[in-house]
């Protein structure tokens, strides 16, 4: 409700983003189209995280696992077994839902740092599996993934793919808002801070956590599939632990529980390293310096709605924040 209402600033930001996408579709360079497509797909994954961690308070570091199922699922089925790519994406989606249902109950019983550790283990396991298995072609990855087509029309066209990616992103944001601004979202926000009280009010806490995980898994899986459909390549690097951390950066820079935050966060983490590439060896230093600056100036993120430091406290150890 209050936290989910779009501020004037957010509406303005959404309009500006829409204008940039339209401009890029009409006049954009290849790089602009590429960047904007990747931003849309990452913003989708970050939105899934915003639902799971932002609304429901479940600090999951395993969204890369579902991206990997979406990505590898498409590549293996479409390239190795010749399945229609759209069907492969749908089957990967089912796989992701299946895994979420399977691991959800035991995993989501863990709380706080234990949940973080459990999901980090899952993310690490995913990357190791992708790196070691012959099924995923190990460290080589799988190239030449078939392009998406509808009838005679091919999504090799980068403008068409830009539209597809932003359609997925917009759909995820819509799902996030519609669920968030309902009794379901309210139950998530309630159990994110007080599980005991939520239970005493009749909220089935494990079930609601599981619903959040499944929906988040679906978003991440679809975005993971489209990413691979776009670059036509999948490899273990896409899902390693640095990607997990990048997703968290994106979420926190944009702001927990903010609707447009994931787009801003994804844009920051994807574009700033490019912008500071002139610093060469110091590129990372400059990027993380800027990142630190953003976090210090706006602890709740660019559009964060979680008051004060709660956003940071929910994820960083307290000793790290004390010096502020």
């Amino acid at each position, binding site marked *: *409700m*209050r*936290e989910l209402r779009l501020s004037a600033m957010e509406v303005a930001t959404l309009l500006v983003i829409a204008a940039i996408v339209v401009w890029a579709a009409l006049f954009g360079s290849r790089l602009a189209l590429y960047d904007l497509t990747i931003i849309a797909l990452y913003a989708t994954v970050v939105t899934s995280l915003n639902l799971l961690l932002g609304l429901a308070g479940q600090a999951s570091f395993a969204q890369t696992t579902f991206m990997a199922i979406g990505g590898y699922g498409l590549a293996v089925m479409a390239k190795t077994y010749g399945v229609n790519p759209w069907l492969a994406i749908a089957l990967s989606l089912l796989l992701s839902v299946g895994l979420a249902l399977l691991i959800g109950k035991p995993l989501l019983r863990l709380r706080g740092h234990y949940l973080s550790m459990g999901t980090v283990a899952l993310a690490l396991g995913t990357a190791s599996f992708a790196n070691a298995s012959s099924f995923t072609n190990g460290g080589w990855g799988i190239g030449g993934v078939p392009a998406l087509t509808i009838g005679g029309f091919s999504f090799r066209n980068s403008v068409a793919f830009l539209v597809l990616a932003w359609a997925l992103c917009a759909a995820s944001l819509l*799902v996030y808002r*519609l*669920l968030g601004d*309902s*009794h*379901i979202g*309210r*139950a998530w*926000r*309630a159990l*994110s*801070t*007080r599980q*005991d*009280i*939520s*239970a*005493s*009010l*009749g*909220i*089935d*806490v494990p079930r609601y956590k599981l*619903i959040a995980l499944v929906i988040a898994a679906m978003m991440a899986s679809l975005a993971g599939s489209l990413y691979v459909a776009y670059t036509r390549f999948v490899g273990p690097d896409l899902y390693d632990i640095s990607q997990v951390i990048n997703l968290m950066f994106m979420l926190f820079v944009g702001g927990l529980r903010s609707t447009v935050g994931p787009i801003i966060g994804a844009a920051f983490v994807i574009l700033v390293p490019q912008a500071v590439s002139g610093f060469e060896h110091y590129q990372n230093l400059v990027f993380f310096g800027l990142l630190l600056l953003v976090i210090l100036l706006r602890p709740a993120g660019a559009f964060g709605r*979680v*008051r004060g430091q*709660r956003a940071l406290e929910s994820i960083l150890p307290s000793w790290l924040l004390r010096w502020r």
Partner: protein
Amino acid sequence: MGSTVAQGPDEPGLELVDVSKTFGGLTAVSSASLTLRPGTVHGLIGPNGAGKSTLIGIASGFIKPSSGQVRLAGRDISTLDPTRVAQLGLARTFQQATPITGLTVLENVMVGMHLHYRSGIAAVLFRTPSMRREAREREAAARSMLENFELGADADTDAADLPFGKLRFLEIARAVVMQPRLLLLDEPAAGLNAIETERLAAIIRVQAAQGTGILLVDHDVPFVFSLCDHVTVMNFGSVIASGKPDDVYRDAAVREAYLGDETAEETAA
């Protein structure tokens, strides 16, 4: 919820039968029995550490009894979790006022209505007319409940920012909108001033008149005795007296264990 169970004046309500709870070597509750009938106010008093809150915890599914049985409308609920117990029509408040922070005062009350929402995920995603109507109606009901509890002006405040007295009322409002058949209040008057206590008494009377069975745990003996149809006294985990307020008040064991101190004599006089 739970409308399949018999309701009416003869409904057994909540029954705790020979309930015990030990934590390690410590006996918190020792074969205590208590019956809370719908439409009545039942006081539960006793010194600190007598086991009153443990008993509420056992009745609401938060604490599993070591032995004995908890029955709700005749059904054994001893092993059910708090969610299921709440779904069967039992609401409780906590000794520490417990706002859900990050939610507004209005939202806190609306979370209390969670069980009554009929719209599913699909209805929410497609914003069906019935879903929107339900959301509007529930919000209106929550706002009018806030007015009843004199919290109307605070509807959009973060619950964390509410002063103590109002937090108590918010918590009770959140439990009342669950429309429970049984409501367990753990020291609701603690920290309230005289005016607030009088408002609380009025609320409890109204709820009981509407058929809710209320278990009232409190230290304020005159407050409890003035409201209750039935009083149970606990000491060291055991029930030492139970009956009509006047009879309990005359009970020698009670006077010695609990009412024997000077302040109680004075206030009750």
